[in-house]
């Protein structure tokens, strides 16, 4: 007795084509997927907020929307209105980007760039600097 099955071939090389198909067949689900993607990105950042110093750090800025980290919290200013909930910020960003994954890619690039700049501004506390210096000295001595 033998079994035979045919593997279904799924071409995911063009992820944008796949997303386009979802958008056309189920627009509501597509928008939900988009918002979830943005939300998850913001949530991942939020986990590290406690390590930020107090102050305001801008993640994204456009004419109508500013997303920033303010004293260890994420907030958005959209057309003068303060938006605080991560989900609402994700919805606002999604709407602004017209649920376009290509634009989301550009948005994320801008945020990554800004995060990179912010990290350079953050000066570690003296004890952390001392620890790193000690670690460095130890490593080069081992060598």
């Amino acid at each position, binding site marked *: 007795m033998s079994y035979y099955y045919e593997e279904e071939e799924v071409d995911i090389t063009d992820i944008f084509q796949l997303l386009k198909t979802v958008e056309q067949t189920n627009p509501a689900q597509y928008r939900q997927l988009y918002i979830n993607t943005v939300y998850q990105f913001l949530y991942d950042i939020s986990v590290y*907020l406690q390590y930020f110093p107090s102050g305001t750090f801008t993640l994204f800025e456009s004419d109508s929307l500013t997303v920033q980290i303010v*004293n260890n919290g*994420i*907030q958005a200013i959209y057309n003068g209105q*303060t938006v605080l909930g*991560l*989900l609402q910020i994700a919805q606002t960003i999604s709407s602004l980007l017209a649920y376009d994954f290509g634009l989301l890619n550009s948005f994320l690039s801008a945020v990554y760039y800004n995060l990179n700049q912010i990290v350079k501004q953050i000066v570690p506390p003296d004890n952390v600097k001392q620890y790193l210096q000690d670690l460095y000295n130890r490593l080069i001595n081992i060598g």
Partner: protein
Amino acid sequence: MSLCRTWVEEELIPGHIYPIAIAHFMYNGTVVGTGTVEMKLEYDSFSASYVLNLTISDATTNTYVYNSIMILDGNNVNVALFTYAKSYNKGTGLLVVHESIYIPQLTPPINFSVFGLTILNWGEVIGNALIYGGTINLPNTLFMINELATILDQIPFTPSVNITASAFNEYQTITCNVCSGQVSVFVILAYYNATAKQIMVVGFQTIVGGFSSANVQWSIPFNPNC
């Protein structure tokens, strides 16, 4: 003590408060004298309340016996009733009675001022409105906050109403899909004005283990006897 039901229903809920104007000295429910009221608002950290201290005076030479005092506002609505276990005689001289209205003040688990918002205190707003008159905003937004103090979700509070013998209750079933899977979620009920950047927290509760659907209720207790 609680504020009167008529005041809660006719002024607090619609949102327009008239300043406290006069006091009625009463004996077994009958008005026997009229007094003036001076007010001062203070914060009492021991009871975590704003305290509206009332100095009720009757400088007339009238004499009477009273066992309760009703406070009325400029709209002639009963605001608060102070009842006493025993009766007191007013002689021909000046009568001065000190009473207090306590309005509890919550300290929310997150300091919204870090977002550049102006914090309004529920007790302070009501206390000042009772002194000077003014507008009161009831809660309109729920914030869901995780243990890392991240605001996960904010949704409009558009409650149903249920009135019992001693409280005005507002309740709503909420859904927060991003709250599920969290270690715990603080649900904060507040008046929030995103344009004016003002926030006034009126209640909060903690839901351990997160949730995707929950019932939210908040109550304004009132004194049904005045």
